[in-house]
């Protein structure tokens, strides 16, 4: 019967010594993990944690399945090998412990034997080998490749070396066990690495090897939580406790809270809640956030990882520290594209932190220039360009567009948005959408002069009160006409109406026009004839692809309009690269060399497409301007997906062109 003797040649005295040392190692580990307990508890308390099924699912995906870690193929793959390797070894050791203590009741070899034993042994051999390879890989990465965004301290290499030595001695011990117990040779083929080691190993002193391995393993356990490696415990805790608000939906600021605290937004570290502190401590300094940051990529001061580390460092004292160590340049450079949040394996919400600081600085009057002008116009005229509401239906000249009322019998309410109403480029988009609706027989109405900015522009830039004022007025209008289904042309309107109005009493079924239009094509209501002449690429808007998880519908819509296969830029779908307009940047000036749109234009030009399709009015402006600057001759045309669909609409009955 295949099995092995546990604690072979280890005397009872030595066993007691082992238990004593193990107790110390676990104590050191436990203290290290919880050493920041006071910092966490010093945070604002969390609301009751609910929705456990969703949280457990999230833990399964991001911890067990390593979903976010794997977004990086090589480093993520190595990480997965280490994670699964240690997990397998932990399970293996637990099985041995169950056998060992169970033996007191059921006699030796009651459980860990036979086929089960062989499977466990084989698994440990394989996972151990994977762990060994990955540890070597990580050491090489730190010693040779040394990615700039990755944090590096001597402890990192030191700890990896300790793990590597523990793994190697584990295999040596396995070989020594086989060599010392001839009965195991018969089935040692199940542990090829152990068998191999046993053949080259000089007949060793088993207890010495056992103690070496044990000491190293206890060392790993004790050293584990230090030098940011407590991420092992803190990331699952961060994921389990994170707010259930969808990504990009900011927490409403209540007047009561301001009256109570006298504070607006994130003024100092004392305003950070328990979860935010936990998530900041969980940061493993992998630097992925900074790698994907469009502002950082064009040389701006913003560095999401530095923001995390700076705040974390200032939490240590336990006293509230003003967040003035975050510079205005960095705070206003953020486009709210959420690339960092999407990448972060620790589920840190960098954008919420940045927008929280913005709230404070706007309340303090620290925003000036064209961004502040936009807010003033938004406050007085309820659209960012300060144009009169009476012109909101100018785009619909020559089209049959009806104003919404409670009894209009509409199928959808078409939310035109300020850009659709006023920006000549976006007007073409909304004209195309209206024409397509008409062709598909969709009964739609619009709010016209009663529509206001959703407040997105105000909220992202940090003017929470203006946002709430606009949102409440819109909700009153929308609820007044009994709005249920809403279609928007702008991903920012989509996000605000869909994900943020709920908290203020506005619950609607909101879709982006590419979603609704592609459904019309699928259901056969909208009949298009694929066009042949253009080669098309598509620029995913951050707020559609990343923040609202929709990158298929626009592609389906494009496919229904052109017969050629679509060309994909280097970064697409939820990895898309920001045009530079988000987070209020649309209204702020920046030198031409520091425009994310420029970098994006190069990528779009590299596809060789003659047409760049977009799904967002701000992307349309930024991408058009950037392409014109990057390629003054042969500038690709920039059209909304809806305009492409319009071209594929049979019978030329379009009245506005």
């Amino acid at each position, binding site marked *: 019967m295949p099995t092995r003797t546990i604690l072979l040649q280890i005397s009872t005295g030595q066993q007691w010594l082992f238990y004593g040392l193990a107790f110390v190692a676990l104590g050191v580990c436990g203290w290290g993990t919880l050493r920041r307990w006071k910092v966490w508890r010093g945070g604002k308390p969390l609301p009751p944690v609910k929705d456990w099924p969703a949280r457990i699912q999230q833990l399964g995906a991001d911890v067990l399945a390593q979903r976010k870690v794997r977004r990086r193929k090589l480093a993520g793959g190595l990480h997965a090998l280490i994670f699964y390797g240690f997990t397998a070894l932990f399970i293996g050791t637990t099985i041995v412990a169950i056998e060992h203590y169970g033996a007191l009741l059921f006699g030796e070899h009651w459980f860990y034997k036979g086929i089960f034993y062989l499977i466990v042994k084989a698994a440990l051999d394989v996972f151990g080998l994977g762990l060994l390879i990955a540890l070597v890989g990580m050491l090489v990465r730190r010693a040779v490749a040394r990615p700039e965004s990755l944090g590096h301290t001597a402890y990192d290499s030191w700890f990896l070396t300790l793990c590597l030595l523990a793994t190697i001695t584990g295999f040596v011990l396995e070989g020594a066990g086989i060599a010392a117990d001839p009965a195991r040779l018969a089935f040692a083929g199940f542990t090829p690495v152990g068998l191999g080691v046993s053949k080259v190993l000089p007949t060793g002193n088993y207890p010495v090897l056992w103690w070496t391995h044990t000491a190293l393993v206890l060392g790993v356990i004790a050293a584990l939580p230090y030098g940011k490696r407590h991420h092992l415990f803190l990331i699952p805790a961060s994921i389990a406790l994170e707010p259930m608000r969808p990504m990009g939906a900011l927490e409403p600021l209540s007047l009561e809270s301001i009256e109570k605290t006298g504070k607006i937004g994130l003024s100092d570290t004392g305003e950070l809640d328990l979860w935010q502190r936990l998530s900041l401590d969980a940061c493993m300094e992998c630097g992925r956030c900074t790698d994907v940051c469009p502002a950082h990529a064009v040389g701006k001061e913003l560095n999401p990882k530095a923001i995390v580390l700076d705040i974390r460092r200032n939490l240590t004292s336990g006293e509230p520290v003003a967040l003035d160590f975050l510079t205005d340049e960095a705070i206003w450079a953020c486009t709210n594209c959420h690339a960092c949040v999407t990448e972060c394996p620790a589920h840190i919400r960098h954008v919420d932190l940045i927008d929280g600081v913005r709230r404070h600085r706007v309340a303090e009057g620290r925003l000036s*220039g*064209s961004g502040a*002008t*936009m807010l*003033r*116009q938004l406050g*007085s*005229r309820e659209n960012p*360009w*300060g*144009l009169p509401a009476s012109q909101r239906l100018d785009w619909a000249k020559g089209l049959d567009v009806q104003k919404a009322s409670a009894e209009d019998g509409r199928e959808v309410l078409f939310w035109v948005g300020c*850009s659709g109403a*006023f*920006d*000549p*480029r*976006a*007007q073409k988009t909304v004209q195309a959408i209206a024409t397509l609706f008409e062709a598909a027989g969709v009964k739609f109405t619009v709010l016209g002069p009663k529509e206001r900015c959703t407040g997105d522009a105000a909220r992202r830039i940090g003017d929470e009160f203006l946002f709430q004022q606009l949102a409440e007025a819109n909700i009153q209008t929308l609820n007044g006409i009994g709005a249920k289904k809403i279609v928007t042309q702008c991903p920012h309107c989509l996000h605000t109406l869909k994900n943020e109005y709920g908290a203020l009493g506005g619950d609607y079924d909101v879709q982006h026009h590419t979603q609704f239009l592609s459904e019309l094509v699928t259901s056969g209501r909208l009949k298009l004839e694929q066009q042949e002449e253009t080669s098309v690429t598509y620029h995913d808007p951050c707020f559609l692809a990343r923040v609202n998880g929709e990158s298929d519908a626009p592609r389906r819509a494009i496919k229904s309009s052109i017969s050629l296969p679509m060309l994909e830029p280097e970064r697409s779908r939820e990895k898309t690269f920001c045009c530079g307009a988000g987070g209020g940047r649309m*209204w*702020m*000036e920046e030198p*031409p060399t520091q425009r994310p749109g420029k970098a994006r234009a190069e990528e779009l030009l590299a596809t060789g497409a003659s047409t760049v399709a977009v799904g967002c009015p701000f992307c349309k*402006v930024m991408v*058009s*301007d950037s392409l*014109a*600057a990057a390629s*003054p001759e042969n500038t690709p045309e920039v059209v909304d997906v809806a305009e492409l669909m319009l071209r594929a609409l049979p019978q030329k009955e379009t009245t506005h062109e």
Partner: protein
Amino acid sequence: MKLLVLAEVPQAVTFAQQWASLTGGSYVLVQAKDITAEMLVAAMKAHGCDALAGAATSLGRDALARAAALLDLPMLSDVVKIESTDNRLVLTRPMYAGNVLARVRTLGDVAVYSVRVSAFGLPTSHSPLPTPLALEPIPTPGVTVLSLDAPEQNRPELTQARVVVSGGRPTRDAETFEKLIGGLADKLGGAAGATRAVVDDGIAPNELQVGQTGKVVAPELYIAAGVSGSIQHLAGMKDSKIIVAINTDPDAAIFEVADYGLVADIHVAIPELLEKL
């Protein structure tokens, strides 16, 4: 009641005359050259003035608001009308980006006023107006002027000009820009403006940028040459009285807001126009 008046433009004196006839008080005129808020405050003390007024020009907006803060007086900016009701001064001024006109009163009828030049005519007077007093220079505390590097101004300032000629990307280079846009602006006695793309390409200096992130202008005549009419540009010139657009693309958005449109190449149309003017 005594009013100190920053006599930068004659319209400020008109306001002062109306103020004096409504309150029965008198006024003192002071010169505007190199004025600072501190000098105004000192002059008010020296002449025993209660209130302060001036035109809502760049200088007035700056100095008057600072003086109001130093004096701890209410500031009423962009006043377009002054009247008296029940022996109290009532001033009319635009609010909410000009969407409403508010009639306001201040406690004790003393305040600092900046008045809209366009709302007040030239002063009516049978006797010659008193010469504005020159004030002793007092520097702004905490500010030392090291040097003054003002670009040579041979054209009116963009935001003040009655005519603005703006060029877009088709102006190609600085020389062509100066020849076409600058040339036309000079012929019309106006200022030259540019789109962001032109400024980005270094064709025109930063100060000439018209638009959302540049200068906001509202001249009587705005000529957009080779400007496509993006929303960012429109945001900076939409309030112009008469808009003329020249563009080769008949679908260009600028034609939507233009009162007069010419579908033509600016390299052909503007030289022709210069010849005929």
